[in-house]
């Protein structure tokens, strides 16, 4: 993986993500105050960015319609949005490696059935399925993670299936099987570890997509529920005050885009780094 950092895109992407993640983790240090309680609603609402309220508190990104500091909510909302993104992708990776791994390892109808399942799930418009799920079950942060995870595993399954097919023709797999190891143990111990790097690339892109999808669900009121701030429900609530306080909706959208750009650049950089390594080896 060390060759990755020679790629400028990977460096820029990782730096963008690192800054956002570090800020979210250090939320209590970089903000002052609670995300849900304003000091004085009437005096401190709809303050523009870079302004002071009556109590002398500084508002870097202004305040919303009930006087809450947008910067504070942005940073704490980042914790939720990033956690939703990363956890749902971890779930997608588990399901995707399981389905794709078995589809690539097995032969005959079980493999065909798993491939068909993947193709089918890939053809569904993700948002339609997500809307359906989120509207039918009462949305909560945990369910949103579950739904995003269960609708994002297909690209990983496809990739892992191809990788497992290729890897299983290698002599080290034959060797492990010949030495008496059980079939699924060989898959787990010898084949899966070799698929992890390309999976990481797809997962990096998946994190950005998952955060975008959560924001979309929140936009329809079906994502992470208020008063817990997430970038999505911040944009949704900023929609109502677009006329007199456009910064409420603008700020979370910009950070969201920065995170997605970071994920894309990191993924692109990793991919071409892997390509280089493979072309050197092969």
């Amino acid at each position, binding site marked *: 993986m060390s060759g990755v950092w020679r790629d400028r895109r990977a460096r820029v992407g990782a730096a963008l993500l690192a800054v956002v993640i570090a800020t979210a983790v250090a939320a209590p240090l970089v903000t002052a105050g609670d995300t849900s309680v304003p000091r004085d609603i009437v005096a401190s609402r709809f303050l523009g960015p870079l302004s002071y309220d009556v109590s002398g508190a500084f508002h870097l990104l202004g305040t919303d319609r009930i006087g809450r500091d947008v910067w504070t909510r942005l940073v704490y909302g980042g914790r939720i949005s990033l956690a939703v993104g990363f956890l749902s992708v971890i779930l997608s990776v588990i399901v995707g490696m399981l389905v794709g791994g078995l589809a690539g390892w097995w032969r005959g109808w079980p493999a065909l059935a798993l491939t068909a399942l993947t*193709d*089918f799930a890939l*053809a*569904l*418009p*993700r*948002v*339609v399925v997500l*809307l*359906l*799920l989120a*509207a*039918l*079950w*009462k949305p909560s942060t945990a369910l949103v993670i579950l739904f995003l995870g269960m609708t994002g595993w297909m690209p990983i399954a496809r990739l892992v299936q191809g990788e497992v097919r290729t890897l299983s023709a290698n002599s080290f797999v034959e060797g492990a099987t010949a030495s008496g190891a059980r079939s699924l143990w060989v898959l787990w111990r010898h084949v899966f570890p070799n698929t992890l790097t390309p999976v990481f690339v797809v997962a990096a892109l998946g994190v*950005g997509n998952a955060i*975008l999808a959560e*924001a*979309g669900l929140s*936009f*329809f*009121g079906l994502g992470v529920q208020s008063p817990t701030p997430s970038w999505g429900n911040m*944009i949704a609530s*900023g*929609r109502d005050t*677009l*006329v007199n306080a*456009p910064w409420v*909706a*603008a700020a*979370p*959208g910009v950070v*969201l*885009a*920065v995170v*997605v*750009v970071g994920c*894309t*650049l990191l993924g692109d950089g990793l991919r071409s780094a892997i390509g280089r390594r493979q072309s050197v080896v092969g």
Partner: protein
Amino acid sequence: MRMLVHRALTGIAVVAGVLTLTFILLHAAPGDPAALLLGPAASPAQLAAGRHRLGLDRPLSAQYAEWLGGFARGRWGTSIVTGRPVRDMLATAWPATVRLVLLSLLLSYAIGLVLGAWQAARAGSRLDTALSVATVSLVALPGFWLGLMLVAVFTYLLRLLPAFGAAGFDADFLGTWGRFIDGARHLALPLATLTLIGVGGAARVIRGSLLDALEQPFVVTAHAKGLSDARVLVGHALRISMTPIVTLLGLSLPALFSGVVFVEGVFAWPGVGRVLVEAVQARDYPVVMAATAISALLVVAGNLIADIGAVVVDPRLRTRVSGR
């Protein structure tokens, strides 16, 4: 040809699968449409009667069989919430969605083609890097957020363009020309939102496949023949890159449709996406089923058209198909 038939059959299987999945999900989820329809004051007897009227008291398999049979024969039922026939609701909705999608596809690929070709011709230059940063950022923007920002600027700040619906309240009283202008003004922001995001994706794909094509031996030959860089790029490299571009266009349709759902939500555009969102929120079973089916059909049909398109633009696929 056999490939296309195979694809069409797979598409039908996907639509059938979507319908089955939707049916199962709707009935597995908590919540009772009869209770939603009759309100909290309904007595148990009224609820039972309501469920009977909606056919919800019969075995699931019977409900499914009847629904599927009716759907195939064009009987899509009536909306539980509005009381209107589902077919009428969707018949007015789907052309609005298709119009928006087709126009934005056309525009994004036209602009993306120019940008991508420009970048590929000057790969590695500062301009290429700047455009790459721009296209990556465009793809990363949440569609509904971009829509809101365009509304904030063009509707609230500059007071130039309308932000809601497909026509003004006075549209019925305008002449043909006036109605066209009114429609175009309403189309502008939703179309711009979808197109801006689409341009990012299209330019990235076109740049990538052009750069791949430029490494091919026939490009070296074309250069050796003394052709100009522009002719090599357009006449040789672009031609060969059309296949991956058209294929990716088909694959990007589900994502595009997802984008449409949000854009229709932001701009109150009267399309399938908005019907679907409203029906999902109100748990309007017949409308949800039909709108899901229509969206799956649109995506599958789009993929099929892209497959046919790939055969049309790449003569090699054609000879392989007919030369069997």
